[in-house]
């Protein structure tokens, strides 16, 4: 009788397990997913607050700084750029903001290369105190985010009057 009792207890314990095992009538599917995420960097212009920079609405990676009419007798241009004379040069200054964002990048800074188009005369373009050359000027470590630059166009007072149109190409690269 004791054996029978033990057998019945064992059966009682096993039966639910067997019933639950049967309950696993499911269909399985497995989807393996892979994706390579690449870092990316985006550069856009922002107005420096003086109204001399116009960002291309359709493509904010392009902007125009119109310095207006200037002369050595002025202290500001017709478009609010600051005008001074220094070291025999007419210096026209206007700030602008460069906004660079990095995504999935390994560092918090990037490298910026600025290249100026050929001069009309002997005028020079500076970002702050750094001259932007036609062969390209490199800013090795710039932190992501908004950076304000002061664009200075230095025109020798000896240079004849006339329109000056220059282009600066900017390339940001993740470090």
């Amino acid at each position: 009788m004791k054996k029978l009792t033990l057998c019945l207890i064992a059966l009682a314990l096993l039966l639910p397990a067997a019933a639950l095992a049967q309950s696993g009538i499911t269909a399985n599917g497995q989807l393996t997913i892979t994706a390579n995420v690449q870092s990316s960097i985006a550069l856009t212009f922002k107005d420096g607050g003086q109204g001399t920079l116009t960002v291309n609405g359709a493509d904010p990676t392009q902007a125009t700084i119109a310095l207006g009419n200037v002369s050595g007798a002025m202290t500001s241009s017709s478009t609010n750029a600051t005008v001074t004379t220094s070291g025999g040069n007419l210096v026209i200054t206007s700030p602008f903001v460069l906004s660079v964002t990095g995504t999935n990048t390994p560092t918090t800074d990037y490298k910026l290369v600025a290249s100026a188009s050929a001069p009309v005369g002997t005028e020079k373009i500076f970002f702050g105190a750094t001259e932007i050359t036609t062969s390209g000027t490199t800013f090795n470590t710039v932190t992501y985010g908004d950076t304000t630059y002061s664009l200075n166009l230095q025109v020798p007072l000896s240079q004849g009057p006339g329109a000056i149109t220059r282009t600066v190409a900017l390339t940001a690269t993740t470090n």
Partner: protein
Amino acid sequence: MADRHQARFPQPAAVCVSEFRLIRQILVLMLLCATHARSQQLPGGLGRPLQQAQGTVSFTFVASNRGIPLSSLGSQAQLQFGSVSYAGMGRRQGLEIAAGTTSFLVRTWLALRLDNPAQPGGSAELSAMLLSPDPDHTYSIDGVRLSTASQRIQAHVSYGSVTEHRLEIEIPRSVPESRAGVTQAITFLAVPN
């Protein structure tokens, strides 16, 4: 002396009654357990054998008209997004990339079919779960966020019909690319209703 002997060693008839009660209780317990286990599976409760009643469900990934092609079909499929980025690299037909403030979404569609010859008019509940935890990415199907625990995607998927499901993977912008790559497996479960 005889009374003391009787007290320590009960009569045979008393033993039989006690054992009978125990056996009866065990049998009742067995019946209850079996009934409970079966009622978890069959909406109709007791009746037909489970296997006969529900048949065998098969799960198949099929080609989707909306999503990017899977590199293999059947119950084991592979989905290769290739190279993707916040700036939209990798965007193509069937693969959408939506840029957000702090992350971006990679989105495609999957098609699958459940079959059950024993119950062609029936349906199953579709669930999904991640094979392994992934703190850097968020996975969702039809808006249901996935985890390593099974999550219900659709309560009733009819046998024999192809259903399409939106798969989205959210990738934070702050995760460096060395860690941002996606390698994951999603297990789908179909349980007969």
